[in-house]
């Protein structure tokens, strides 16, 4: 165990993966030489350690980067490619959705695509909507793709390692706002299983599900809620696909209430799936309306005053919990 930032934990995972498997390589725009000289960047120092053969700076060609991963993984390599920011997933989406997610199925199980795509997510660095746009629900809606979203340094390492050695295509979302967060990280080759959520707090009145940086928004709401005598069960989802349905359903069957929190647009966001699933499969347990906390249906704004409107805050979580408790 040692104290590491989220970014260092990712870096650790990449280092270990490359050490233990010759077939792992990384590629992307600036994964080798970066404009940042920052040990909290996931790929920091890897070029020096592993050389130009295995750490590939690419042209600004997102479709080709994804195509590289699909083609190389089908040949038995384990590519770990980076798409710099989430909105640029659009440019790679044909390769990911129509190819990585479907070709294995259509081969009748003859081919597999053990690739990993790292992508940076997050709101709040003032670059506006072409650099910030969380699209996890797109990926989750696409059959054949897995998607995980770590919230802690330990999970950053464990989920990335599991993703790299998973036989299927996995998208690993990295919240930019978390890179500098510190936490305990076990040494060595640790694997966080896909499809297992983490119970952060247990409680009796309301289940709150979140992932990534939104988890900390939830935790900030936790105290005021406790003070109001509301006992929340907070679940860190970790893996969106596969989804730990049992964990969520069991919790809601206990608490009778669900609040989902994410930074993506609420409309048709991943929270809709969770809310719908619960309203479908644990309806008899529900004591109040399911509630979704997420962004209004606007592009990610640029101005600080507007970002505040966009980004769900602890007060929104408190409000949502109180509303579902009212009924």
């Amino acid at each position, binding site marked *: 165990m040692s104290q590491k930032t989220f970014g260092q934990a990712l870096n650790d995972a990449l280092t270990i993966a490359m050490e233990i498997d010759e077939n792992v390589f990384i590629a992307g725009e600036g994964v080798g030489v970066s404009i940042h000289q920052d040990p909290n960047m996931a790929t920091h120092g890897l070029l020096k350690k592993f050389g130009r053969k295995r750490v590939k700076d690419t042209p600004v060609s997102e479709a080709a980067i994804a195509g590289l991963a699909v083609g190389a993984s089908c040949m038995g390599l384990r590519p770990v490619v980076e798409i710099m920011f989430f909105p640029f997933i659009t440019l790679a989406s044909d*390769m990911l959705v129509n190819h990585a997610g479907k*070709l294995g199925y259509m081969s009748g199980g003859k081919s597999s695509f053990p690739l990993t795509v790292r992508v940076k997510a997050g709101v709040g660095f003032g670059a506006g909507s072409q650099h910030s746009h969380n699209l996890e629900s797109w990926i989750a809606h696409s059959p054949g793709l897995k998607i995980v979203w770590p919230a802690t340094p330990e999970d950053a390492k464990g989920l990335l390692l599991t993703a790299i050695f998973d036989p299927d295509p996995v998208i690993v979302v990295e919240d930019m706002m978390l890179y500098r967060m510190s936490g305990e990280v076990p040494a060595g080759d640790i694997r966080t299983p896909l499809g297992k959520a983490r119970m952060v707090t247990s409680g009796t009145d309301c289940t709150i599900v979140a992932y990534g940086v939104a988890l900390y928004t939830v935790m900030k709401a936790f105290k005021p809620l406790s003070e109001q005598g509301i006992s929340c069960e907070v679940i860190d989802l970790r893996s969106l696909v596969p989804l730990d349905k049992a964990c969520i359903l069991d919790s809601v069957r206990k608490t009778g209430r669900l609040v989902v929190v994410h930074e993506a647009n609420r409309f048709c966001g991943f929270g809709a799936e969770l809310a719908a699933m619960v309203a479908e499969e644990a309806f008899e347990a529900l004591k109040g309306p399911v509630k979704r906390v997420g962004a209004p249906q606007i592009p990610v704004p640029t101005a600080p005053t507007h970002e505040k409107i966009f980004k769900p805050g602890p007060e929104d979580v408190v409000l949502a919990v109180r509303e579902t408790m009212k009924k």
Partner: protein
Amino acid sequence: MKENQIVPDLQIRLYTSMILTRKFEEKIVALSQEPYRMPGMQILANGQEAVATGIVSALELEDVIISNHRSHGHLLARGADLNSLMAEIMVKDKGVNGGKAGTLHLSVPDLNVLMTSTVVGAGPPLAMGAAFAQQYKRAKGITVVFFGDGAAAEGSVHEAMNLAGVWKLPLLFVCENNCWAGAQRSEEHCAAQHIFQRAKGYDMPGQSVDGNDVEAVYNLALELVEYCRSGKGPALMEALTYRMRGHGEQDQQHYVDPGELAIWEAKCPIRLYRQKLLNDGVLNQAQIQTIDQDAETRVSAAVAFGDDSSYPGPETALTDVFVQPPSA
């Protein structure tokens, strides 16, 4: 190693491969006219056999092939099993992909026909990834990707050519320019007269060839495959040919000038080559007949094999989404 001279033995193989493809696809034409025999869209390479045969014959088995919607010739030239291929085209469970590919997404990884994408233009970036893996593993093989003149307009093709050029990947880009993309002529989708002219922009050799002359195709392919194999980087080959049966079997070609079709009919790669082999005394009429007959026999057997198998069972619809599915 491949013959780098055109010897009779090779000539017979080239002819045999082309006629097999033709007979195979003619059977699909016939079956497509019967209701419910051939689900999906049937897109045939009739008239383009010399490209598939010429190029694939110049490859080693370790070389990887990435195909597109007009794939039958590529697969047959590689020696794919007719039975399981036909069964797959009929979407049957004994098909090479268990009835999950159909005619449009055939893949035979055992023979290094790694994948087929029918997203137009998607082949080149996939092939770039495969060629990268070959370079990474210091393998001897190269990758060949087939795409159309229409596909050449897709951005993905540019990205793949550029990246292959920067990394000097062992990748042969083969553009089968058959004068059409759907109902649009090349001039409507390609700004320059020739697609091979783009090669200079990626620092790779680019050449065009008469795609209906199987030996010319073979010879140029040998040269460019050798170039790629030697580690010099990618190359672009444009084969000029014609799509004789329109875009697909539903296409009545109402927009095609019959005069143009007749001209290309006269340039049929198989007819021309048959005549040449007869003239040169490589084969006589009887031998040709035997080869043709044999092809027909094999094709009929393949159809029987397909007929003999069933549509895949409903339960298999849910498998193969993941190698490691979520534990329920």
